[in-house]
């Protein structure tokens, strides 16, 4: 199917007469929203099961799932709903990684071709994100997600992770952010640039930029962008404020290096959601997120976080099969 065909695959009702929002179907799942809540329904044991989330929480989570292209592994919208990326196909699930739902047999998972679920999620965001609400922004920086449908915010929801081939600012690579304003919480971050003194004939071959200046001008939260590529090793720094809108489940080991301020991480079992640890990371701290956990971060002030990913193909299979241990270092 081409792009237009995928868009045509989106199944939606006409706008509700009272709220103005459409209801969407994705396979056996149904997504609806009202002034305050999103309701998701699915079949289980011959019945229809349902789950509700605050509309703002749901939209922030779905926005990350779309912007990250379903990311590495699991994106848990909350303790019930989420997606699992199979890189070409994506599982939508309800209760499948919640011990109680699993035990009761009321969980449900359905797999979709990536473009199909992506088209549906984008259509939901387009319809349900109102004018004045930016799901990428910190709560202090944006208006309300609530109320009957009023306008839209297409520009806000079209932002994605920035792809970089080698390093931002190199010729033909991703741009720097010199035209963006400095975020209000990074007003004290130095904006000075490195000095480049190239000998004649080597102009353009030496390259440096201010990573902290670049991050201080990020207009989104919890949305990593690549800033250096060493084969399959990707530095993906990001700026964080308030709470990571999803509980990210790892299909590989990833690492966090706190570049400024503090983030506190809740870590839980990937499959059951049982708590495992609470990690407080200050500037200079570096820690691994093992391949068998899910994590959610809290940043009371906007902070800079270096997310480090290994994009080597087939890692999910190697971890899932037990070929690779979930922990990166044997101590």
């Amino acid at each position, binding site marked *: 199917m081409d792009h237009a065909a995928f868009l045509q695959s989106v199944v939606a009702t006409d706008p509700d007469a009272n709220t103005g929002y459409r209801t969407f179907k994705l396979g056996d799942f149904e997504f609806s929203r009202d002034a305050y809540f999103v309701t998701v329904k699915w079949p289980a044991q011959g019945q229809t099961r349902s789950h509700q989330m605050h509309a703002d929480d749901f939209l922030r989570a779905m926005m990350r799932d779309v912007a990250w292209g379903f990311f590495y592994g699991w994106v848990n919208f909350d303790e019930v709903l989420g997606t699992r990326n199979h890189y070409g196909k994506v599982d939508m699930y309800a209760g499948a990684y919640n011990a109680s739902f699993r035990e009761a047999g009321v969980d449900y998972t359905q797999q979709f071709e990536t473009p199909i679920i992506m088209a549906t999620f984008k259509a939901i965001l387009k319809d349900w994100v109102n004018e004045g609400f930016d799901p990428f922004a910190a709560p202090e920086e944006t208006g309300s997600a609530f109320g009957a449908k009023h306008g839209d915010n297409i520009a806000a929801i079209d932002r994605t992770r920035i792809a970089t081939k080698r*390093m931002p600012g*190199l010729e033909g690579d991703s741009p720097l952010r010199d035209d963006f304003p400095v975020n209000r*919480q*990074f*007003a*004290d*971050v*130095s904006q000075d640039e*490195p*000095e*480049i*003194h190239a*000998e004649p004939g*080597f102009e353009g*071959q*030496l*390259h*440096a*930029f*201010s*990573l*902290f*200046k670049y991050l201080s001008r990020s207009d989104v939260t919890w949305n990593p962008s690549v*800033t*250096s*590529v*060493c*084969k399959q*090793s990707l530095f993906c720094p990001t700026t964080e404020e308030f709470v990571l809108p999803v509980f990210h489940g790892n299909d590989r080991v990833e*690492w966090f*290096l*706190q570049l*400024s*301020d*503090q983030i506190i991480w809740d*870590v839980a*079992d990937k499959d059951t959601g*049982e*708590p*495992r*640890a*609470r*990690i*407080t*990371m*200050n*500037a*200079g*701290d*570096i*820690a*691994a997120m*093992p391949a068998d956990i899910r994590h959610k971060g809290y940043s009371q002030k906007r902070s800079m976080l270096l997310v*480090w990913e*290994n994009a*080597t193909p087939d890692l999910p299979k190697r971890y899932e099969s037990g070929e690779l241990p979930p*922990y*990166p*270092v044997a*101590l």
Partner: protein
Amino acid sequence: MQQTQLGSLDNYRKGNIEVIKGKASHYAMSNVFEVASHAAPYEKVVVGKNLKYVIETLRAQGVSPWFCASHDEFAVALDGEIDVHFIKPSDGALVAENVEGTVKLEGEPSGQKMGFVRLRRGHQALLPAGAAYRFEARKTGVLLVQTILGSASVEKWADICIQ
């Protein structure tokens, strides 16, 4: 506005792990300023490892040996003021294509001087594949290097991690 907290060799506050189930060592957590403060100048201490890929922290103090890699590497200055000087080798590749990670060179390689970049806190430099480079700290500091585990990498996890 709350002040932005950036760490340094002289001022860092290591975090902690409250374990509910499992072991603290599963998270291989350390603090790059603490590690650098206990390291020899330009000792390439691995603080992050993802299969063959690593993040190393270096105490930048004085002048480093010359280094080279067959692939791109990247350096981020987290403290201090550090110059990175580059040479384009004139006698063919200094490191074979199939050798990964940073290779420490014996002395200054022959070749053309490419120039230098001066890094201060928060600045990132490309260490391009095939070029020889050397760090010169104008003010002692800390570098992160994104690279691949190699002959110059030093692993001492038991000494640096919260357990």
